[in-house]
């Protein structure tokens, strides 16, 4: 009897709690343009998620929230850094709050879960960060586009080419042992080995490695001309610190992926640990360009720090979307038109660089920069551009269809040409 009573009470209170969830009336065209923005504000990726939202908000603060006479309403939701919560939030945004467009997420599995959901609803979903290769390659979804995110292996190929041009012939890699690490490393070693270089060793370490000495100790023995590292978050910080303390800095050239020398990392390290490290990215906060400078200054003024890549991606994501919405006169309900506009338009100028556009597979083509950590006039460390690879696509110099016949990168398949 007790059990029944409390089941009843539980159900009744559940019912009471659900009442406020009544859906907003689907507004006729002319109402606001509603954009759902997902970002990890709690959990593992919270710090990056904050910067993504800050960059995104900065754009709308600057540009205003009216497009073609319609109010732009942004609903920011925390994806909790986990796929389950990301999915719950995406469902609420689409099914209850009737957003026209979804934007966001940082961690691959959160974005992939949401992508799977919007495959069913047809809601346009734009990725400012998620880099999982297959999302715009072998397993793409027509309404899921990277904007202005990149696919993991796209980013590291120009770096490999640059290394070859410096005369480096033997490379060793060190990276986090998960998909993103495998893909970024795969892009590097495939291009490097196909250009005549050889890969003398690949080291993989688990997430949140507190001590890199077992790995770094092996590197001098491999006698590489250059080392490539793919690290994110706390691993970046520790790798750069230990690279310097072990005296490897200055002996073996270190090149890294975009996140390793990101502003979010180097702003907490000493110049001695970071100065001179080479990295590759589609954004460089120290790039000498009016658009980038204006963004960096505005961001510094608003948030008191230099922008990380996530901030630039959030900002440019807003810029790109707003640009497309203006072109279609705010008719966000016409999903087909919105998607085809995003696919066909060229964004002439952005903090990332000039002429951003989509390839046929929903991944952007943009300039990729080889960057060097240098000291700015005020003593802050920034990434400056030392070489530019214009208009790099996720397929590099390959034929897309041919390229996609090779397996996805993994620890066992790195695409190294023997």
């Amino acid at each position: 009897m007790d059990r029944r009573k409390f089941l009843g009470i539980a159900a009744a209170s559940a019912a009471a709690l659900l009442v406020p969830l009544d859906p907003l009336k689907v507004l006729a065209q002319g109402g606001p343009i509603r954009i759902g923005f997902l970002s990890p504000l709690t959990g593992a990726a919270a710090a990056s998620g904050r910067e993504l939202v800050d960059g995104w908000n900065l754009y709308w603060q600057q540009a205003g929230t009216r497009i073609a006479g319609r109010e732009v309403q942004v609903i920011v939701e925390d994806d909790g850094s986990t796929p389950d919560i990301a999915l719950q939030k995406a469902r609420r945004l689409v099914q209850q709050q009737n957003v026209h467009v979804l934007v966001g997420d940082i961690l691959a599995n959160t974005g992939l879960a949401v992508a799977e959901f919007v495959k069913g609803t047809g809601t346009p979903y734009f990725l400012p960060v998620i880099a999982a290769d297959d999302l715009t390659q072998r397993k793409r979804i027509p309404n899921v586009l990277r904007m202005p995110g990149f696919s993991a292996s796209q980013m590291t190929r120009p770096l490999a080419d640059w290394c070859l041009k410096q005369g480096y012939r033997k490379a060793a890699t060190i990276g986090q042992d998960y998909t993103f690490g495998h893909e970024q490393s795969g892009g590097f070693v495939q291009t490097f080995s196909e250009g005549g270089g050889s890969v003398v060793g690949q080291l993989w370490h688990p997430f949140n490695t507190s001590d890199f000495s077992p790995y770094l100790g092996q590197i001098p023995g491999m006698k590489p001309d250059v080392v490539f590292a793919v690290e994110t978050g706390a691993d970046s910080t520790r790798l750069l610190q230990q690279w310097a303390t072990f005296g490897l800095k200055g002996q073996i050239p270190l090149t890294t992926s975009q996140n390793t020398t990101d502003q979010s990392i180097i702003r907490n390290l000493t110049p001695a640990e970071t100065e001179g490290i080479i990295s590759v990215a589609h954004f460089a906060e120290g790039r000498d360009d009016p658009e980038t400078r204006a963004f960096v200054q505005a961001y510094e003024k608003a948030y008191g720090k230099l922008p990380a890549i996530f901030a630039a991606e959030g900002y440019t994501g807003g810029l790109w979307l707003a640009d497309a919405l203006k072109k279609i006169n705010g008719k966000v309900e016409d999903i087909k038109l919105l998607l085809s506009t995003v696919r066909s338009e060229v964004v002439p100028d952005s903090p990332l660089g000039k002429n951003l556009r989509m390839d046929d597979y929903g991944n952007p083509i943009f300039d990729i920069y080889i960057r060097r950590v240098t000291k700015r006039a005020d003593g802050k460390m920034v990434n400056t551009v030392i070489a530019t690879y214009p208009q790099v696509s996720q397929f590099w110099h390959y034929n897309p269809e041919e390229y996609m016949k090779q397996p996805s990168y993994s620890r066992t398949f790195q695409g190294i040409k023997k």
Partner: protein
Amino acid sequence: MRLLLCALLIVSVAFVIALPFVLPVYPETLATETLILGLFAMSIDILAGVTGRVPLGHGAIFGAGGYVVAYHVAVAGGNAWIGMLLGIVTSAAVAALFGALAVRTTGVYFLLLTLAEGMIVWGICFRWTSVTGAENGIRGVARPALIADPHIFYYFVLLTVALAGFLIWRLVHSPFGQALRGISESSSRMRTLGYNVPFTLTIAFTLSGVFAGLAGILLVFLNNFVSPSNVSLEQSTQGLLMVILGGAGTLWGALVGSAVIILLSNLVSAYTERWSMILGLMFIVTMLFASEGLIGKAKALARSYSAGRKTT
């Protein structure tokens, strides 16, 4: 009083059955998820509440079934119903193995051993790229055509969870369940009475795994997606928190805990991004003032209420 209870029961049953007609699709999905995770929490309650062994690796059993279904349907292109069967068998096998290794320990050792077992499964899912898709998981897991519609899927889940809940209830109140309670109170006494304690516990662990696997499969069908977070430690602790919040050993508590956690995390987060703090505060308050869980506390209150009425 009795009349009121009957009325409440009828209203709640009617509400659960009529839910897809009265609520829009989003709360319906939340209700589906509540039922699925409630079943998962119930499967943990068999061990945590009845046998007194608190497992921290059940997420792995839950997710293992889901991975098998996902692989069978999305990669191998097999029949989803057969995939479901394979998934349940896998979960049961994983649970049997976990159980056989862990049941000789108690208390914090049992906790740590099951935690380690769960981490092994997580490691496999996270690293075996060619099969599990590693971090990216497996996408595009379609439901069987019969239950593809979200409303029908809701009823399917409702029916499955009701049936599974009934079976668990029968199990816990059977002589076998009494033996489990006996082991919880004193395993040495049960041994003296002639029970094979480790064997009995392994059976309980395996049966619990069957239900956990079933829940894991339903969740994959709901999300059409599986990733290492399905088998992660967070999954295990979330299930355990649901049990503790609702009241360990009550079975219904698992469903209540699941409902409270899912509703709170979705409702509160609409108002503040500090929703996880509110959830944490709620756990602390529950542990301080209702350490026996919501259902447990309510039962105790009801008992003292009726006892009070009898004396006057």
